[in-house]
């Protein structure tokens, strides 16, 4: 699967008088890993929702490989290879891990109900293939012990792994991850970085990552975008953003230890600004 490019042209999402996203213009190249950071309520998740279709854009365009997605339903976008995870990571509480992953397979290889009902050979073959693919992914992610567990019996950390397994199964071309380390322990969060890199290697997808763990973002991403009150205040390579006073003021400044951990103590307010692509 080839990676897709993503282009946002003046994307805005307004809820009545609230301008959750207010004119974001960004371009993401094929195979890039982009970190999207910003304070709570800055519009990161809403921006992801606009890209994957959970909310409608008030104005602007979302281009996947220069195809405008604005009029596509979320499920149509998913079939184009636009895959996302959710912050709450609910999945489907009543389904087992295997079934959850099978649902992900169903979306890409739909089997006709009539063919299924009549046990027609191709429907049986398709089901076997799906189960084989799912079994493979379950082993790859070390979920063997949870195969027949219902999702609502799992811990948040395991649920996140199941979510990532579903993501890999979906053969993404553009992957949107919404706070994948939220609600899991620090130790598990640290294990997440290599996992994400492997997912990037295996799928070759372009990745947009919303994350509050700043060191993680700066170590993983090829590009960092900082949002505040619905607008992009800073964007660029990690080292540029780290030195950008606008970024520091908007978000990074709020957590000096985080800055220390990401090794940016030398970056003073007077350093060269690297603002670019500010939406308007």
């Amino acid at each position, binding site marked *: 699967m080839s990676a897709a490019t993503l282009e946002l042209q003046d994307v805005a999402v307004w809820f009545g008088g609230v301008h959750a996203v207010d004119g974001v213009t960004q371009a993401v190249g094929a195979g890039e890993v982009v970190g999207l950071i910003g304070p709570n309520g800055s519009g990161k998740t809403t921006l992801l929702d606009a890209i994957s279709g*959970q909310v409608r854009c008030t104005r602007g365009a979302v281009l996947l490989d220069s195809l405008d997605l604005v009029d596509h339903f979320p499920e149509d976008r998913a*079939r184009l290879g636009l*895959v*996302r995870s959710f912050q709450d990571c609910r*999945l*489907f509480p009543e389904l087992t891990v295997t079934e959850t992953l099978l649902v992900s397979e169903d979306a890409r290889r739909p089997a006709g109900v009539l063919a299924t009902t009549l046990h027609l050979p191709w429907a049986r073959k398709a089901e076997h293939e799906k189960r084989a693919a799912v079994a493979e992914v379950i082993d790859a992610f070390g979920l063997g012990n949870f195969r027949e567990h219902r999702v609502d019996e799992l811990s948040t950390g395991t649920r996140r792994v199941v979510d990532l397994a*579903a993501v890999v199964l*979906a053969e993404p071309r553009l992957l949107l991850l919404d706070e994948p380390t939220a609600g899991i322990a620090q130790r598990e969060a640290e294990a997440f970085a290599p996992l994400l890199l492997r997912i990037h290697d295996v799928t070759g997808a372009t990745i947009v990552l919303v994350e509050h763990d700043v060191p993680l973002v700066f170590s993983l991403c090829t590009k960092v975008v900082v949002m505040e009150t619905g607008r992009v205040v800073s964007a660029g390579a990690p080292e540029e953003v780290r030195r950008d006073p606008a970024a520091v003021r908007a978000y990074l400044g709020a957590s000096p230890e985080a800055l220390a951990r990401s090794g940016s103590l030398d970056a003073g307010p007077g350093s060269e600004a690297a603002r670019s692509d500010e939406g308007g």
Partner: protein
Amino acid sequence: MEITLFSIVQGLVAGLLYGLLALGLVLLYRTTRVLNFAQGQLGVVAAVFLLKLTFDLDIPYWPALVTVLVLAACLGALCELLLRRLFDRPRVIVMVATIGLSQVLFLFTVLPFVAPTSFFAPYPLPFSTTMHVGGGILQPGDVTTLVVAPLVALALALFLRYSPWGLGMRAMAENSDSARLSGVWVKRMSMLAWAIAGLLSAITAILGAPGKASALEEALPPGLLLRALAAALIAGMTSFTIAFVAGIAIGIVEQVVSYNLVGDPNKTSITTFLLFALILVVLVVRVRRLQRGPRGDERSSWGLGGESVKAAIDRTRAWVGRTGVAVTLMIAVLLPTIVTPGRSFLLARVCIFAVIALSLTVLTGWAGQVSLGQFGLVAVGAIVAARLPDTNLVLLLPLGGAVTALIAIIVGLPALRIRGLYLAVTTLGFALFMQVSVLSTPCWTAPVVGGQVCTGLPDPASTLVARPSFFGWDLGSDADFAWFSLGVLLIAVLVVRTWRDRGVARRLIAVRDNETGAAAMGIPVVRTKLLAFALSGFMAGVAGVCLAFALERIKPGDFSVTQSILVLSMVVIGGLGSVEGAVLGALYLVGLPAAVGSTSTVQFITSGFGVLVFLLYLPGGLAELLHRAGDGVAALIEKGRHRDPHPDDEVPPSQLVRPVAVEP
């Protein structure tokens, strides 16, 4: 259109009662987010007891009234205590529980120490003033309603606005968690709300009773409840004023319309159709407002009956399961040769009801769409059978199924916008519409185009549907028809199991559990939802064709809302979402009462108590009991085997683990 003052005042009397009921519905919905289908029945107990006190025990009116009202409030509070443990389950589950509650409350009205010796005694009234209005005479009961109902509504408004409890209740309605943190005692408030609702319901029933020949209402009179629901929905389930006024308006419009249709044979058909249309319009217009607020439905568990995990892993357990099914099947096949024709007919009925319950397993158990109108769909299949006599059964069954599937998709269209509780209300309206309007009207003149359209039963009083033959197999005798129904049920079970094991069920459940997540994975949400309706409709239609042939003479009453609710009770008692559960539920609710002697009382005992007990204490239903029994038997066998080890039976531990279901 002629509008007379008298018909308006009569409508006002009826409308005031709808308004009072609607007030109770809104109050409970606002404070506890429960759509209380027992709102009517709650008060009927008190109304009946009042008759007992004054007529049988000769207690003066006023003390008796006070006693009864206090009891009604206590009864309301008691219901809250009972249902409290369900409050964190999905709203539709609580709603189903209130349906069970209303059936149990109905039983109270026939208990010897509550029921009066004669239900036809004149209902007691505080005064006997009559009024002359516009050429008609208002009976004392109507006059009482005109005076008391507005006062009650006013008292409720003042209580909610000025008393500290009223403020607390309003806070709770906005945000239960925050209210609790700010020191509002949520549990006590919700109990108070239920007590007030009980009081309101009792006043409604006592005011409404004098007009009727008998104080004993059918449990859950669907028509009355539907009117109150319509008023509450117009109010967005939030505004007391709008709910009350809307109730009055519905009463007046209804009275004026039926005054103008006097003599028209389709009078009730038309008013019911108007009511159904009103509910649909209100829901579509009001949907945003209604679905605002916390989405409890999406957070909580449905609690499926589920499968025995052990059956999949353990060989002995699997053997026990298979043997159980084989033995049951053998008994069922042999039964018609042994028992009387009447019992054979019962077996056929159980089988057909099991198929209908399976159709609801797909729709409610998997797709999460609660249907209170499944018999409306069954009726479609029955109409197909009645309208196409002498059609080959091989053609008729899929045809009935296909037509019903089409209707089911139309019924399901609102479900794309309307979720959970409100969809249940539309399906309730649909069932009533099918029974009262469609089935009872053989033909009607199409508007605009003209010409006769015949969609109802050819003879609404009683339509004869002769049993056909099936490839030369005469199904005329009850025994033969029982075998035929058994075959239909067997195929239905196999089909539904295939859907469950091979991909259909998991898609439906995925969309039910997390619509956004399923869409993000690429599952087409709209198509999946409609698929659930189509599959369920097909099965209900096939069952409808069979039911028409089973009964041989059908009338609209055979497809009443009560039947729909009975089927819903079946799947709840059997275990929501479970295939075995649907069959067990049908056996329990159709087979058992018939074996004991089928009166409505027995039926309400089995279904009402069944629903409450299973929802409260055993959400897995009969299916879970069956699985536990199977586990127990398997354990016994294992134990016996270990005492007497046999080399062939030793299973290495590695084979006990279920192999991955992948075949090369």
